[in-house]
């Protein structure tokens, strides 16, 4: 059992490592593909050699980033089978479909047309090349769509039913899986956050050009395109973030409570702006959850329920199964202890069903199936030992969420000021402090982006499928030492390639800043 738990931890670490490395490259691919496509469209319409040079410069950076994103992506797909084999069987009937569709409909499009994008300048017409560039951007976005549909389904499992004869879940409504509100909001939030990241990347690199006083016109034109893409991304990300918060409040209330460090909820719940968590705080005790906090009155109720006096449950409320109405009445829901009992009852019913099926006793099978169905929504709780096992790591979820929101707020200002400067106050772009802020925004936007995923994935622990399967029931029977070894190998390879990518990017940026841009016809 200890080895099993250790294998779970290391398998989680390996998946997190791969996912975080993958997410270093993918958002830049998603956003930069659009930025490059817009730039090439301008070139196509103006036939300006300068716009062609701008397009090719950013396309080179896109290409360096694209390859390593592809490399890390394939690992994620196969790790579902290699490290989470039980999961692959338990929900493969539903989860596999989006991955296959992604490959067939999106990844082929991306991989086919990216070759035209890089090598087709002299082989195809300008119109065909532009089409290929846009199709690469669309392919990358569609690819993200299906992956995010799969991820959203893990957080909000819909469109399926449990088949006791095969001991797995089977899909019964594809559209419910593909277009669940969680999937739609997650897709929009994630893809447009990629636009922000790429926009900030372009602003930061352009700021370096200006700082070095090299090819300023290239830099300002890039700021305009990158800034607009980033600004659009920011607006849509803010809107979808609000929708995502409502989704989380509705389908993953424990995650929301962890994001807020909220133990005892109330109607008109305040939103914690800045706070330090009390490290000694545990569910059920009387300690103050924060060492200090600055909160916005009724803010969380407004965000989570779109009502100033809406009730937001805390960790203790959820464990105890308590909700309040806006008039202050207490409603008893299903406590976590009851959920554990129901989960265990579902397991027992499944055992009974299996035995009855082996004996050919159809009456007993029907009775067991009915019992199972009545308790199945809490099937995963049957693997937990105590209600506290269903509480995610509070500190990591809480601080990651704050990091994402705070940096996001700062980036709104950076994009706004840089865009305004490029259009109305180009003199501001001579100010070194502003250029430094723009350059430093590049690492910040990556931290922001990673923090978003940490919030989403750590906050849903211990579930690999919300309420139905905890991580310890999802793994493969592999010795811990084996997973540790592959974890180290992945860490070594990814880190080596990340260092190489940064090295190449820096050289390409330097090369771009020294190109003979001014001599080109506009």
């Amino acid at each position: 059992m200890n080895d099993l738990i250790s294998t779970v931890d290391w398998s989680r670490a390996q998946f997190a490592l791969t996912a975080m490395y993958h997410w270093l490259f993918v958002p830049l691919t998603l956003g930069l593909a659009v930025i490059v496509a817009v730039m090439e469209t301008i070139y196509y319409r103006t036939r300006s050699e300068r716009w062609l040079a701008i397009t090719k410069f950013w396309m080179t950076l896109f290409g360096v980033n694209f390859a390593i994103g592809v490399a890390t992506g394939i690992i994620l797909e196969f790790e579902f089978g290699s490290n989470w084999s039980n999961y692959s069987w338990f929900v493969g009937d539903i989860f596999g479909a989006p991955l296959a569709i992604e490959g067939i409909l999106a990844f082929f499009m991306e991989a086919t047309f990216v070759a035209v994008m890089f090598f087709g300048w002299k082989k195809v017409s300008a119109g065909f090349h532009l089409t290929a560039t846009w199709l690469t951007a669309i392919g990358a976005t569609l690819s993200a769509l299906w992956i995010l549909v799969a991820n959203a389904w893990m957080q909000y499992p819909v469109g399926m039913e449990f088949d006791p004869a095969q001991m797995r879940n089977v899909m019964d409504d594809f559209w419910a899986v593909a277009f669940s509100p969680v999937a739609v909001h997650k897709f929009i939030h994630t893809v447009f956050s990629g636009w922000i990241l790429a926009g900030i990347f372009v602003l930061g690199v352009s700021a370096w050009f200006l700082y070095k006083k090299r090819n300023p016109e290239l830099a300002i034109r890039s700021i305009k395109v990158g800034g607009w893409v980033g600004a659009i991304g920011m607006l849509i990300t803010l809107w979808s973030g609000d929708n995502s918060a409502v989704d989380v409040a509705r389908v993953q209330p424990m995650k929301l409570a962890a994001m807020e460090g909220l133990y005892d909820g109330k109607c008109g719940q305040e939103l914690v702006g800045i706070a330090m968590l009390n490290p000694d705080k545990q569910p059920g005790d009387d300690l103050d959850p924060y060492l200090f906090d600055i909160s916005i009155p009724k803010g969380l109720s407004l965000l989570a329920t779109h009502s100033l006096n809406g009730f937001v449950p805390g960790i203790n409320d959820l464990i105890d199964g308590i909700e309040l109405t806006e008039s202050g009445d207490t409603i008893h829901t299903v406590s976590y202890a009851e959920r554990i009992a129901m989960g265990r009852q579902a397991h027992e019913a499944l055992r009974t069903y299996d035995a009855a099926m082996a004996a050919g006793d159809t009456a007993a099978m029907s009775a067991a199936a009915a019992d199972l169905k009545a308790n199945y929504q809490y099937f995963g709780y049957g693997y937990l030992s105590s209600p506290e096992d269903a509480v995610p790591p509070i500190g990591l979820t809480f601080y990651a969420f704050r990091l994402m929101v705070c940096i996001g707020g700062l980036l709104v200002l950076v994009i706004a000021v840089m865009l305004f400067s490029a259009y109305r106050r180009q003199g501001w772009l001579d100010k070194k402090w502003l250029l430094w802020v723009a350059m430093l925004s590049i690492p910040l936007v990556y931290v922001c982006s990673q923090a978003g995923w940490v919030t989403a994935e750590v906050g849903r622990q211990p579930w690999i499928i919300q309420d139905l399967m905890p991580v310890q029931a999802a793994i493969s029977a592999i010795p811990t030492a084996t997973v540790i070894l592959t974890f180290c190998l992945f860490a070594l390879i990814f880190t080596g390639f990340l260092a190489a990518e940064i090295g190449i990017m820096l050289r390409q940026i330097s090369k771009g800043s020294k190109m003979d841009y001014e001599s080109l016809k506009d």
Partner: protein
Amino acid sequence: MDTLTCLQQYWWLIIAVLGAALVFLLFVQGGQSMLLCRSLTSTDRKLIINVLGKKWELGFTTLVVFGGAFFASFPLFYSTSFGGAYWLWMLILFSFILQAVSYEFRSKPGNIFGTRTYDVFLFINGCVGCTLLGEAVAMMFFGGEFTVTKTNILDGAAPVISQWAPTHGLEAIICWKNLLMGVMVLMLARTLGALYLIMAVSHDESFHRKMRRNLVVNAAIFVVLFLVFAAVLLTADGVQVAPDGSMQWVANKYLHNLLDMPVVACIFLLGVVGVLWGIAAPLITKGYRHGFWWSGAGTALVVISLFCVAGFNATAYYPSLTDVQSSLTITNSSSSIFTLKVMSWVSVLVPFVLAYIAYVWYKMSGKPESPANVDQVY
């Protein structure tokens, strides 16, 4: 035949076609495995890299789609094989990571490790990727050491349904039958690689001479290995599935499958003839450069027929050497009828996808690469 059975067979055929495409596209790996040949000049290497570098994504994408399609249509295989033969699949993945970045990074300034290192990475992917993928497919005939017990999911202490031998795939890598097929696939890939380079590179007699020599050596080894593999396969035991779902080992199962399915036997023989003609034609006729298409098409046909032999005619396509009743068949490992139907609607778009890939391939092929126009793209 009921709808579910039809869909299961349809999806097995799609898996076969994807597998065929993957093996066909291994010509890229085959070409990479020649990169470190001492007889090659630096210009030769640039030519090889430039020619193969425009095609590597297709093979990589096909591998991703192959994995995704297997996951969606036969999830029990996905969970059993990937989670069980862990080292085999991990080594395949490691080798493919190396490929993905090497083309893009190798000649770029600031790449830290130097061009030579990335060429070694491509060589490793060429050799290891082909051999291990061949071994993974060989397990569909020669089996693996696993058991499947679905009730384990209710065991809180050890809830894993698919259990594998403690060596987790290392035993499969060193199994001589798997190794035979793995090395055979490597030699086939090198043969296809040589044929592709002969077709895609022009105006260089010296380069062609070297590739022809490579073709002769690799094709000769491949043909010998293929004959041995065919003999081993056709005399091997396989797992027969009874109408009640029970399974047992029977002698010469794959030979019987070929004889019971004459269409598959014809496809197999046509494929073999195609491969051999593709190899022979450029050697017999001086100046003929399109043997690649014959051998490539032949390879695809042989792979499709092998998948049919492995999965059809009441055969377990993934025999368990530990517990024969745990063996995987297209019936007991497939997705539900609903999911297979959904995926089948999606598969209607596959011809459209193939059409635009073919169109882009055609548009991007242009004139063959030659030393005169070798601008270092990678």
